[in-house]
């Protein structure tokens, strides 16, 4: 279902009314109620054969407005322009938002070289003994960096796989977010998310299109593909997500208990064999996610742990030659995932962090493409120099099962308070079949500049 011009017009209308609201603060700066800031970012990526992969301009304006003593509003806009067209497919995305967006989400305007969207737009208020944040927003759960167990409230945009900043790739959702303080140290958060937006994957033909058999079903040989059917949840009430998080601080430990009843953000690709061939249908499935996190500091170490149990997860089966796929090519199981992370800050201006991510399928058989247990190790090194004028960050991820991984590095220089420059590199290694290895030939070098005002 493509976003219709009507929906775009609704959002545009909302945006214009917002603009009218903000306008007075420009005209009468002395009585301005709005606090305005913005950043302008330009990033160039060169691939390993010296070709431009992206030359992207990002503009992110932000308004914080005190509507009354008790009500404040935040608006964050987002405009992207990149004429390289290697990360978007001119054929599939002309003047339309990707399919995974729900009505009311997605960009206001999009073409193969540019996109304008309302990034976040919400109201904060305090009432009925609770703090309310209502509107389009991001909610982040969990303690792990880069590896997601509980951080699944918002879907993600995989246009640049995992290379983009989470801040930019996480897709904000329209939701109601309530936090109820309990006693001095505890807090209960309740989320109601009627926004039916899911992961946005890289479009076909673009740089980071998924090719790993972990995610792309291999069709039985010699069987023609008859059709592709997409089914998306459609009722904002019946199909909405619901979440609860209880946070407390006890004996030096930061603890949370989490529960989320949601549609998983990745569609399940069922295969149906007919007489003349196979047809694929993409469907979203419900899941109960329950979990907890715990973290504490010991000397110069900080321990972070995160555990999640998913009742229903769906994985691709291997296709057998000339054989009807069992269970429509899909294996269903519950899954236990966890992350244990250890940060070390023993060296001046330095943080080193190691994380061990594992996931286990309770049910498994030899047909399933992914192994029963999955292990990823991550290593993060951050160091600043000369009073944080220079900042170096290196993140390495290594998957044990596919023997593949990625190494990202970035060196940032603060030229002025509001002007920073960076160079970075993103590299992948490993077999074509792996999560990271599939992008083995998509290494790149980055140069960027950000001006904020």
């Amino acid at each position, binding site marked *: 279902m493509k976003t219709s011009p009507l929906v775009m017009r609704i959002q545009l209308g909302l945006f214009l009314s917002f603009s009218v609201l903000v306008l007075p603060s420009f005209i009468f700066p002395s009585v301005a109620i709005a606090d305005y800031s913005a950043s302008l970012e330009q990033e160039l990526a060169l691939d*390993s054969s010296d070709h431009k992969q992206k030359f992207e301009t990002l503009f992110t304006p932000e308004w914080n407005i005190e509507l009354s003593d008790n009500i404040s509003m935040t608006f964050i806009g987002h405009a992207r322009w990149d004429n390289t067209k290697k990360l978007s497919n001119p054929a599939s995305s002309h003047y339309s938002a990707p399919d995974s967006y729900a009505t009311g989400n997605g960009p206001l305007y999009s073409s193969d070289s540019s996109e304008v969207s309302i990034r976040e737009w919400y109201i904060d208020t305090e009432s009925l003994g609770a703090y309310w944040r209502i509107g389009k927003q991001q909610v982040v759960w969990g303690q792990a960096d880069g590896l997601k167990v509980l951080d699944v409230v918002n879907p993600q945009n995989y246009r640049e796989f995992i290379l983009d900043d989470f801040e930019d790739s996480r897709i904000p959702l329209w939701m109601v977010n309530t936090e109820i303080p309990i006693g001095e140290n505890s807090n209960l958060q309740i989320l109601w998310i009627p926004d039916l937006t899911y992961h946005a994957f890289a479009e076909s033909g673009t740089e980071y299109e998924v090719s790993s058999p972990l995610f792309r079903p291999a069709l039985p040989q010699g069987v023609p593909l008859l059709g592709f059917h997409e089914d998306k949840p459609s009722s904002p009430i019946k199909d909405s997500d619901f979440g609860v998080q209880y946070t407390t601080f006890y004996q030096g430990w930061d603890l949370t208990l989490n529960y989320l009843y949601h549609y998983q953000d990745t569609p399940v690709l069922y295969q149906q064999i007919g007489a003349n061939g196979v047809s694929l249908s993409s469907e979203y499935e419900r899941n109960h996610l329950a979990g907890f996190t715990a973290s504490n*500091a010991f000397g110069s170490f900080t321990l972070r742990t995160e555990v999640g149990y998913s009742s229903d997860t769906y994985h691709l089966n291997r296709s057998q030659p000339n054989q009807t796929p069992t269970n429509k090519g899909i294996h269903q199981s519950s899954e236990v995932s966890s992350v244990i992370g250890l940060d070390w*800050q023993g060296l001046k201006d330095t943080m080193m962090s190691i994380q061990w991510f594992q996931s286990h399928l309770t049910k498994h058989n030899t047909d399933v493409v992914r192994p029963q247990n999955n292990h990823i190790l991550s290593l993060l090194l951050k160091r600043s*120099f000369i009073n944080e004028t220079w900042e170096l960050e290196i993140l390495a991820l290594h998957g044990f099962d596919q023997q593949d991984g990625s190494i990202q590095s970035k060196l940032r220089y603060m030229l002025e308070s509001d002007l920073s420059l960076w160079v970075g590199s993103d590299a992948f290694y490993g077999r074509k079949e792996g999560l990271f290895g599939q992008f083995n030939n998509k290494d790149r070098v980055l140069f960027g500049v*950000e001006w904020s005002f």
Partner: protein
Amino acid sequence: MSENPHPSTARTIATLIVHYPKTQVAISLLLMIALFMALPMLYKDTRSDAFLADDNPALVYRDKVKEQFGLSDPIVLAVINTSDSGVFNPTSLSLIQWLSDEISSLDNINTDRMTSLATENNITGSDEGMDVEPFFEAGISTQQDADIVWNKVSDFPLYMGNLVAHDKQATLIVAELLDVKQVEDTFQKILNIVDRAPNGKYDEIHVAGEGAIAGYLGSYIDADAQRLNPLAGIIITIIILFAFRRVSTGILSNVIIAASVLMTLSIMALNGIPFFVITNALPVILIGISVADSIHIYSHYFELQAKHPAEDKKELIIQTVEEMWRPITLTTLTTIAGFMGMYFAAYMPPFKYFGLYTAIGVAIAWFYSLVFLPAALAITKPSASKQMASLTQSNQLDRFSRTMVVLGRISLQNPKVTVGLFSTIIISGIFATGHLVVNEDRIKTFHTSETLYQADAAINAHLNGTNNLDVVIEAKEAEALFEPEHLKKMEALQNFALTLPNVQGAASIVDYLKQMNRSLNGGDKYSYQLPDDKALIAQYFLIYSASSDPTDFDEEIDYDYRIANIKLTLNKGGYVDTQETVTQLNYYIKTQFNNKDITATLSGRVNINYHWIKDLGSSHFVGLAISMFLVWAVASLLFGSLTAGTFTIIPVSSSILLVYSAMVVLDIDLGIGTSMFASVAIGLGVDFSIHTIDRLRSLYQAHNGDWNLTLQELYPSTGRALFLNYMAIACGFGVLISSKVVPLNNFGTIVVVSVSTSFLASMSFLPALIKLTKPRFISGYQPSKKTMSSRWIRIPSVIFLVAVAGGVLVNQPALASEGATAKTTVPNNQLPSADVVIANINRVDDGEHATRNLTMTLIDKRGKKRVRETIGYRKYFGKEKRTILFYKKPTNVKGTAFLTFDYPDAAKDDDQWLYLPALRKVRRISAADRGDYFLGTDFTYEDIKLEGKVDSKDYDFKTIRSEALAQESSPPIQTVVIRGTAKNNVIAKELGYGKTEFWVNVETWLIAKSIYWDTKGKLLKTLTISDVSRIDGILTRHRMTINNHKTGHTSEFLFSSVDYKAPVSDGLFTKRAMKKGK
């Protein structure tokens, strides 16, 4: 391309590199990054003392003298007025008074040691005996008064020439420093004072002196290097881009440059070796050398690629490595040999380390060129530029190759002329060597347009001079210097010194005694002589001390009249100008002065300079010989022929000899900068001849012994690569020619001349010579794998062993000598005890809760500012203190929040959280490292947490004195100074402070100023607090400025809108509030 049927070791390794390129690149980069971590530990040492080993006897003695007489290299201000009355007019005298007052109010100025017309006393006879009075007091308003001052001063021979010019037109203000390490800062402050001085119409103020030179030299050279190094990098990148027309080649060469330069500096930092003045040349040299290796790889690879466009690029890379590793390794080994020669021969630590670390940098560049570069090429797989490919395919040459072919034709057509020409150069060079002048003059480091240079010239023109030579007189027994016999000897020594070249003034206790004798004899000129009677002399001292400050003679004589100092002043400081004076004085002292009762020893700046320059010439030639020998030995071993070794060093020898001739003709002295050129010239220049000989050998094989074809073929390929190599080096060093630091400028010029000559000689002289002699090391060469590989193992291991042995000997961490900085303190029973003061400090009310805006300004040593605006809240929950800080500006840190729970139980660590908006996550962070710097400022977490209080568990405190502390914009405040010494090493390490002193306002019990020393006892930081006022009845500090002396970085915290009354909600100190940003 391999000459062996079995894959060579080189091929095997290259294959491994090329097939796992990402692993290699990752390892190389990680290695680089791991070492970079040490880079911030590097520190600067631009003192000229650094040129001598810390245990050099001259230096040790000088330090002893310094301590004895409290002498240090002063900053000298000259007030010059060329009008008729000179400086003796009311305005100029008031100016001198004003300057003296302003300068002595600076923190780092030793007030007791200021010398100027406004501070010195006149000695006159009076009815009661002797009057000791200032030459003038404030408020000279008429010309008449000024004339009186002139009459007084001109009647006091000691001051004439030393303090006041004989022609009235100039006078000095001499200021000594408490801590010489802060000289840069103090120098800048003095310049600020000079800027706002109330000058009269004809008054000029000059700032000079050894203190000023040291103060300015550091920043002068830094500024220069910061301009030059990037420029060299950019120029070389442009050359590479122009030659190969691929962006990636430029990027990859820069990675190798970064690896070689920064890793070398990091290794220096890890070994505790400081960054000396001459270390500034190291990056430029490494840039030139490291880029040469990559040029050879690129050239060969693109040449192959252009010839075989269809071939698998990985295979071409393997072939390139297989072909090029040998010449590249050869040149690396000889370059290392050249620099190790410098290391072994140099006696001054900066030169030793320069040789050693350049050699290390060259080795790093070699490793990255042969491992990282092929791996990176295997990833990017660049193709030869279209132009190059089409030229190759049509068998045409590009303009670099064409230039080289022409050069080849000229030199090979007339081999005898070529050889004759270079022989002339060699012979005239040998002749010129005898005429080289060894000289060094620190002031000439500066460009003649620098104000410092002009100031020095002005002072030397008007007064006795800016260069000091001290003669320390030491007698065996106390009070021996009351003996007229000894004093007469001193007088004779002084008179002798005044006959020596460039000695303009001499001053000692003898002159004061003469003046006293004269004053007490009614001012009779003939009485200006030493009294004859020991008792009388003792009385003079007694009378003087009764009528004036007893410390007045501290600079001239010690308290038990056993040791005295004669201060000689010279108007020139160069080695050639002072060398004779020093040697003659030494001879006089040895033969005429020293006896069993009394001895004299030279000290002072001039003597130190004499000691560090006197061996420069011999060190230069010994180093040159060692380098030459090492290069010759390594080349002979590698080529398996002594003749080949000799041929290898011929081009370099001719280039060095040509440089000597040029130096003699252009009147350039052999000094610090220039003496370094030889090792550099050898290290770089020998590469050309090695590539030439190595290539000729394989070409001779390929052309079946046809000499003409062999020599012709050299030019288009190897010639082109060497030409690019030469261009890169010449341009890299050529940048130095634009340097304002004169020695660096000379150095750059000389290196460019010598590298050009080496290149030309290798491309013309050497082939011509080979054409004439047809040596057997080329024609008889048989590639035999076994002997080669065993040689390859032998040579690096020899060099490695030598290097390790040398490294062990040298890598004793440089001892930090700390100047005596503590003021003499008089124990005073009336001062409050430290315990009471600490208790009072900690009792100061800071409010139950507080709200405030905090603006943090971070200023780096170049004055560049970054500003961060925050809102902070603080509240006590019982005894537990909670603090939260929200960042508001600039946008890139907006939303960051920092929350701390500080528990009263000291054993319990604080709990801390950081919210980073980019992650949208509240992150628990460890709080154990209280000595870590707080969010990029110069405050530590502990400093921030204590908020001006003191933790008595960390230090042992002692009250050391009371002091009126000057304030910038308010009257001085009365303080007590408390010294805290960390209780043990563990605590000191945790805090990052070994010692602290703080000035406590005795009315408010707030700390007004603190100084911190690091765990090694080096001065680390100074904190000043100002704008203290009461808000809601609570004393509030509004401005805190902390200055890090090690890094030159400053942080300024400005508190505003401080409010202790507005309610602060408990909900602010939660993770929810952090996320919401309020």
